[in-house]
């Protein structure tokens, strides 16, 4: 089930489940959600830094704009994959401070891991069928 179906995220927050089980319950992720989570993999970022990180490699165009980005962030916050903090990550200059920073929660990390493993499985299966060469190109 996509992360976007409301309520599903909370229904799996039963106390007996492990972090991994809860994470698997949230899969698969929609591509932009996975991308946002991946940008946070290196450490906390503020909103505009996420937008910059999500840019096309050639930097030509904005990939996600403010409004849609925060729609994703709101959902990720609600389902406990991301946390929000006013404290900047260490090493931020004082005149470069922002209102809010976003970071992966342990559940968020588990979800990224699980999704990565799932995708890796899909890639292996694609290779096995001979549809994808070893180097990556079809």
């Amino acid at each position, binding site marked *: 089930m996509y992360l976007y179906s*409301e309520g599903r995220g909370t229904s799996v927050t039963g106390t007996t489940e492990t972090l991994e089980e809860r994470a698997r319950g949230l899969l698969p992720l929609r591509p932009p959600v996975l991308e946002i989570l991946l940008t946070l993999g290196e450490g906390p970022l503020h909103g*505009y830094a996420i937008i910059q990180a999500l840019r096309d490699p050639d930097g030509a165009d904005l990939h996600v704009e403010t*409004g849609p980005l925060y*729609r994703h*962030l709101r959902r990720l916050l609600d389902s406990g994959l991301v946390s*929000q903090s006013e404290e900047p990550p260490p090493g931020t200059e004082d005149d470069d401070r922002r*209102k809010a920073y976003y970071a992966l929660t342990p559940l968020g990390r588990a979800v990224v891991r699980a999704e990565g493993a799932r995708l890796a499985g899909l890639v292996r299966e694609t290779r096995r069928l001979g549809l994808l060469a070893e180097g990556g190109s079809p």
Partner: protein
Amino acid sequence: MTRLYRLLLRLYPLDVRARLGEAMAETFDEEWSEVRERGAAARVLFALRTLVRTPLLALEEWRRGGVGGGGLGAWITDLGHAVRAIRRSPGFSLATALTVGLGVGATVSIYAIADATLLRELPVLEPDRLVRVAEERSRQMSVGPEGPRIPVERYQLLREALTGPVFSDFAGHNRRTLSIRADGPPFSATGELTSGNYFRVLGLRPAAGRFFTTDDEPSVVLGHRLWRSRFGGDPGVVGRTVSIGGRPFTVVGVAPADFASTVGFVHIDFFVPVGAHESAGWPGARLTLFARLAPGQELEVAETRTAAVMTRFPPEGDPSAEVLGAELAPMSPTPPSLAGPLKRFLTMLFAMAVLVLLIAGANVAGILVARAARRERETAVRLALGVGRGRLARQWMIEAVGLFALGGLVGAGIAVAVGEGLSRLSLPLAGEVTVDAVPGLGALAFAMGVATLAGLVFGAMPALHAARSEVAPGLRDGARGTSRRSSRVRGLFVTAQLALSVVLLVAATLFVRTAHRSMTADAGFDPEGVVVAQVNLRPHGYSEDEGRRFYDRLVAEAGALSEVESASLASLALMTGEISSYGGWRLGPDDEDVSIRMNRVDGRYFETMGIEVTAGRGIGPEDGEGAPRVMVVNRSFARRFWPGENPVGKTIFRHDIPYEVVGVTPDGRYVDFGGSTSAFAFLSADQHYTERMTLHLRTRPGAAPTELIRAVRERVAAIDPDVAVVQAIPLTDAMATLLFPQRFAAVLIGVFGLLGLFLAGTGVYGVLAHHVVRRTREFGVRIALGAEPGRLLGMVLRRAVVLAGVGAAVGVAFAAAVTGFLASLLLGLSPYDPVAFVGVPLLLGVVALAASALPARRILRLDPVEALRRE
């Protein structure tokens, strides 16, 4: 934009806003500042996307909240329904939003211009306590752009008498163009000569440094815009010395950023105390007056008391100019002399923009009616399921208002883009004129209000239409029932659109014809290829001998330039709005003095300007300083003083000095495009020295004016590095500037009209196509029974002709009723110009026929078997 986004964020539910609002606003700001770097197109697209998308995202957050049940819940459900309906057909929604957006954008743009020029208050302390003060005289000696002017000494007398009981403070000012020199070459700038208390009366605070306090300290306050553009916004400029008109002035301060001048749209570059200007050796200035009313003082009382003081002091100079009283008027950002015409012009444009909005509204309403007819089955099902008719109508209303509101957002975006474009445009009218017409929050709220109102008005018809649907027939077959009625309603909307388009196009055609006629009419001279450059030596302290030498050298050097065929000097350039009249002329000792418009020219002027001398000779080199005074007159002049006689050889006196008429020119348009030609005379410049001259250069074919203008500036700077060319411009450009209102109106209304016509054309197509589809089966039967397709075609085309005919007739009648109001802008063209009133309906006919081509083809290709098998 960032302010607007914060406003849009308020649409989000409170919990989301509390948690993410600030972070979103901040991220948006950073995103916007990056988008701004990428040029106008990216900016507009981004703004439009944001304006449309943000409310939808906010609504989504509300829906997540899962409000249910009656009351507000039902509204939110309906809202959700509307949003789904809007998103389900994005093409249709985008088209309607764009259509409405164009109408709203047009309206808001004009509103923003009116706001910037007429409605907004001056950015000064308590502007409602400021008044313009003018002396009423039996004859005004001097009138400036902001009202009558009086000598400085007289102002000082009045100030002494009036400050305290009537005014808490009383200031005077006068605009003057002077050359400034800081580090680089000199440039010409618009300055304000002010009384020392000017800024105190306005209640302003300097952006840097201080303001001056006395009438005569040799200091200058820079205008904020000049400070930014020429001094890089460096506060360190305070204390530096700049040269103004060749004299040193110390920069003491910078005017605040939002203050352009006492006229909302004129940017003053620098302010100098009027006394310092005088003590620099320049001739006495005259001042226009304004004052701050004393606390508790009322305007009428102040006016009476001011009049009492003014009449006590006898006027300067001519004793016949008796002081009659005083006139006090609230200080609006547009001076009274301009406010009237500007108001009329903007009201006219606003009315045209409202027509566009009506066309757009009618267009969308027509489409909504058609859509309601198509969605009959859906409506019937919902009625059968027990949804109330009121609720149904409400859902349709919400959908319509939603579409119009989207249009409002698009319109706001368009208005912002137009405003930004306009504010970058500066007009070389009296001084530098810039209209800061970027819509503020007020204008944007106005946009949304207009759009919502239009949604309510134009959504009502389709909503009622839908609510009146019958259940049974709607379920039985999807296409009959109310279709006939809906098609009639649509026809009505299309006719209205056509009629309104006719009004717009007639108005636009009138303006195009006016501009074209004015530019191509025989002006009595040949402006093509003439470049004019104005130089003013008055502030530079030249004696008459020095001045004559300066101009002799300038015209000789300019004439030697390779691009120049002929060079000449005259005191003013024709057809640039400049007028100079001289009084004191009389034929005999017993006649009354009259005042005549004239120009002082040198020996090569007639040749350079291509003015024909039909009898006698032109002004020549023999008419020098010591020679007998001569003049060349135009036909009107000759008719006025010597009707039926040959004027050559006649004599006329000015202050008892005889002038001999040596030549005659045809009547030409010399001052402006409007009205009739009047008496005009050319005097010899050598016999009437003036410090202000305009160099006239006729270029050789193919010479580039910009190159030439640069060369002229270099020559002037080579003769005296302090002297700047006030204005250098091809004469045809200067003339076109005079026609700016007409050209602006022609382009704007023309675009409006063509858009309207295009929309109306799609409307005609829609109605006919619908008509053909609805009757396909019937036509099939008829063809099967042997009817000629041509006859059926006639039936459809007749409908097109009726639509276009009624639309054109109503439109022409409407246009004839309103174009009379445009007469003052048409410069002599009849407001019932046949070209406009015949041409536009013809164009309408062509569009209607083109719109019926596709439906017609469908009939001609109708296969009866296919037609009967349908349904």
